[in-house]
């Protein structure tokens, strides 16, 4: 357990020293969400329908863009290789890094999303479902993304490659995340979607730190 | 015969499907055969060079 919390604290402290990175991700999220109405047109009725999907896709892209940071710095200065020989299981250390990544990229997006939702004319109760869906879904994005980040460690053009590897795997999260909001606003109730998102989160928590740790071992071999 | 190619008005779609499938599968085989040929030639040349050296 200490392996996880220690790693989270360390990575969060490191991230706090480079606040610009967190802000860049947030700004990307905001600007993508602001570009869609410019492309589609300002009719609130249309925007209200598209809002949840657009915000979810924007959150997905923003969280993906920051994946490169998860292991890059530790890889560059050799810390990562030393983590491999630590007595603590590597998968727990990876879990710590994923949690820290989520605190620096996913959580800010969740907190900011109601403001952007207002721009799309979403009602307060819809905003609530949007926030819950993002709260459950963005950790899954970080967990799955860790595998992609570990596999592409140190490769040329790793950023674009990560997108190709990870985006298809994000599809279920996107479907049920945006689906929860839509189901709620159409009166069907989003609970079913949300509980499935929760199931995804549990599954990803169980499997992906282990897979990402295996990927790290492969990449550093 | 013309009726056969017409496919009850769906000629474009039926032949567009069968044709593209045939072209892709044939192209894959041709590329693989050429890859093998080029590989054998390159490896033989490499081997002769190495033998000359030793």
């Amino acid at each position, binding site marked *: 357990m200490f392996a996880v919390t220690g790693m989270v604290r360390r990575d969060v402290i490191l991230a706090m020293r480079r606040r610009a990175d967190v802000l860049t991700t947030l700004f990307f999220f905001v600007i993508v969400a602001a570009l869609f109405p410019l492309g589609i047109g300002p009719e609130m009725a249309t925007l209200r329908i598209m809002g949840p999907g657009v915000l979810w896709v924007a959150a997905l892209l923003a969280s993906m863009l920051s994946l490169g940071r998860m292991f890059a710095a530790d890889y560059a200065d050799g810390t990562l290789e030393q983590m491999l020989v630590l007595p603590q299981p590597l998968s727990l250390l990876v879990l710590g890094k994923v949690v820290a990544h989520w605190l620096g990229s996913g959580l800010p997006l969740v907190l900011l999303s109601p403001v952007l939702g207002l721009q799309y004319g979403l009602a307060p109760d819809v905003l609530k479902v949007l926030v819950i869906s993002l709260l459950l879904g963005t950790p899954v994005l970080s967990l799955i993304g860790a595998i992609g980040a570990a596999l592409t460690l140190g490769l040329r053009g790793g950023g674009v490659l990560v997108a190709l*590897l990870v985006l298809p795997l994000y599809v279920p999260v996107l479907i049920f995340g945006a689906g929860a909001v839509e189901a709620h606003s159409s009166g069907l109730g989003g609970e079913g979607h949300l509980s499935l998102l929760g199931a995804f989160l549990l599954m990803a928590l169980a499997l992906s730190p282990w897979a990402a740790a295996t990927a790290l071992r492969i990449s550093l071999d | 015969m013309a009726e056969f190619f017409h496919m009850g008005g769906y000629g474009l779609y039926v032949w567009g499907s069968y044709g593209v499938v045939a072209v892709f599968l044939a192209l894959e085989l041709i590329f693989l055969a050429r890859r093998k040929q080029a590989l054998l030639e390159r490896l033989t040349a490499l081997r002769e060079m190495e033998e000359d050296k030793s």
Partner: protein
Amino acid sequence: MAIHWTKYSAPSAFYPMAGRSLPWLAAGTLLLTAVGVYMGLFSAPTDYKQGEAYRIMFIHVPAAWMSMWLYIVMAAYAGLGLVYNTRMAHMLAAATAPTGAIFAFLALWTGAFWGRPMWGAWWVWDARLTSELILFFLYLGVMALRAAIDDRQRADRASALLALVGVVNVPIIYFSVKWWNTLHQGATIDFSGSKMDRSMLWPMLILTVAFWLYSFVTIFLRARCEILERERHAEWVGELLDNRG
């Protein structure tokens, strides 16, 4: 007769075995393709609902089935390669991906050509087509990762892990896309409704076997190239090259 399959995990044994079986596999592919296409285009009766356009199904469905099956095959080889660290399994996984990707593409293409007359649109966000598209992306991801890594061992192991992650996700993706599709009431024509005549089922099955044999041909050809590239310093490859003259 007991066949010792593990024997063929040695590239030096696999190479001649693949070489010997290739003519038979190729002959079988040609024969079954000819029979299947003949039955599909000539002897199968016209469908009363879809007209002649349903003949596209005879290649669309086998291509889609093969694209899914080859992904499982690739993941199985990837798993074998990761667990037992056998070179041959990694080479076969590498050889399977491109053929699978081609079948996924062909399933999408023929799906579009069937959809245009049936749905009135080249592309409909139908659950099957959408899942097939994502499967195509998964293939591209595995191939792109392999291509991006110079170190051969890392490329093998990294793409193997990605293939395994993909195979865990494929059922989840399929069911989420299916659910997404039913919720949005997309324009879907369920062709399980139009009962399949036996004369319609046979060409589909025969072409499936034909595509399967075809996959054996291309995978064996590609695996032989991989073997030559990787084992070129082995003695038996040297002898093989010398005997070529």
